């Protein structure tokens, strides 16, 4: 599978857990737009360490995910891993406990992914079983798309 490996937009989360699915929802939305050449939008789901293989070889990665940042619901924050500290499991007992923090650290150590991914975090209102987003997070989608398109313009 050859692909133009320039920019990857990676939407994370589980759409069956309310706002936790925002990353996946944004990727669906992006696929309806005409993205510039060399830009790939894919759903990473909750693949954990499996994300390393997905990010490999791209020049830039933009990650979209629900993030508990202590902000009001629907707030969108663009940040890099250097600006954030992820609360992670110290010695994971299971692949299932490995989150984005560990994934990014390993990808950097192995030099297989872009050095500075950009994360677009959305503060969720409701993370519980059930499909559909809260009004606050649903309402943030146009802003998230705009931030992503601005990032693409800048690259």
């Amino acid at each position, binding site marked *: 599978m050859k692909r133009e490996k320039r920019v990857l937009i990676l939407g994370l989360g589980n759409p069956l857990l309310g706002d936790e699915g925002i990353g996946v929802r944004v990727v669906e939305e992006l696929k309806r737009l005409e993205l510039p050449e060399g830009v790939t939008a894919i*759903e990473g789901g909750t693949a*954990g360490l499996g994300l390393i293989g997905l990010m490999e070889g791209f020049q830039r990665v933009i990650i979209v995910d629900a993030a508990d940042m202590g902000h009001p619901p629907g707030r969108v924050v663009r940040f890099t891993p250097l*600006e954030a500290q992820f609360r*992670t499991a110290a010695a994971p007992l299971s692949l299932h406990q490995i*989150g984005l923090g560990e994934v990014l650290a390993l990808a950097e150590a192995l030099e297989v992914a872009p050095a500075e991914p950009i994360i677009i975090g959305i503060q969720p209102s409701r993370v519980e079983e059930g499909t559909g987003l809260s009004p606050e997070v649903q309402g943030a989608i146009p802003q998230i798309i705009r931030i992503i398109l601005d990032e693409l313009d800048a690259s």
Partner: protein
Amino acid sequence: MKDGKINVHYVTRVEGHGNIVVDLKEGAVKELFWEIPEAPRFFEAMVRGRSYADAPHITSRICGICSIGHTIASLQGIEAALGVQPSEQTVLLRKLILHAETVQSHTLHVFYLAAPDFLGVNSVIPLATTHKEPLLKAIRLHRLANEWSDLLGGRTTHPINMVVNGWTRLPTPDELRALRQHITEAIPDLEAWVGIFKTLDIPDFERETEYLALQRDDEYAFYDGAIASTDGGTTPVPQYREKIHEFVVPYSTAKHTNAARESFMVGALARFNNNYQKLSPLARWAAEEMGLKPVCYNPFMNNVAQLVEVAHCLEDGVRIINELLAMGLKEEDRSIEIKGGTGPSTAPSTAPSTSLRAGLRTGVGATEVPRGLLIHEYTVDDSGTITGANFIIPTNMNHNNIERDLKALVPTVVDKSQEDITLALEMLVRAYDPCISCSTHLLNVEFV
């Protein structure tokens, strides 16, 4: 450490996820709990009232790592309930994509989670410096598995091409030939890792237990089979409740299980112990190199069994591709025929049918996912709506066995420091790679 408590607690979104609690008194275990919640119960509620066609896609979200296996177990359960017999081509393609998931999950687990333990470092990060070449080989294997599941499933996770009674998109012969080429090229990477693992010191610990896995006469069973036990005998999948008993323990919201003995194990080691004779030549070579022989009662060897299975899946993947190419893939009619009643009627497999025979139908699907036997049972009514579901994930079947292993392990390490005891217990749990809170990965961020 003769007295004192060990508490291994993990930060996850829900309280009480994956905790090990040990209370030692004069070198003896006073109390030991392995606390874990039931993961997929809410998915059972989520599929009730939905069309049968929705179940595979919904249940693929139960797990970000075993999404292909959940999809397959769900398809099997639904097809059994509806009396649908998928074609040979459909089944072969399912077997092929299931191998992709086994390679994907086992490589991640063996190389990123287990290898650091055996190489004496606390995470995979230091290995990026000391074992960079082997890790890059692991990443290549993992990338191959991603390409493999992407080609067949339409995505690297949460496949969309598999539906009731068929596939919405078939791979082309050229795509299959390219995949075969890439699988063949990956075999030296696997062989290199076998070379590393044969030098590692795997803890010498044994506890005799029962091992359950699907079994077939003609192949090393992953996709389907009867439930076999190392204690003897097989149970047809629809009668799984006669073999596997679920029960509740007070300190855990997850159900525990037993079969012939007080506990049993499922997973790579259980499959190896039941089906060793059916392994491919490369896999048998890998087992011999790493000193794994059936019946092996050392749960730490589950990691080695996983590596053996990676070898099997690579070699068997090539075999299946050859078979598919020889058959020639063709578009098939996916409409489903309902057996019984007043005669056959048909319904499109992507929409609920109004012409199903009256009454409730139950079907059970069972497949071997990376962590072991996975069971999906569905009841479907005459409009094609799901009225009930029961899912038993491998980790739930293993809880009881993990706890008994931990209890047996503690006395063998009790003279060590608290830190070393804790590490031994963690390594044991890691060998099972239990499913812990896998349906969500919410980022938890503090800004610095």
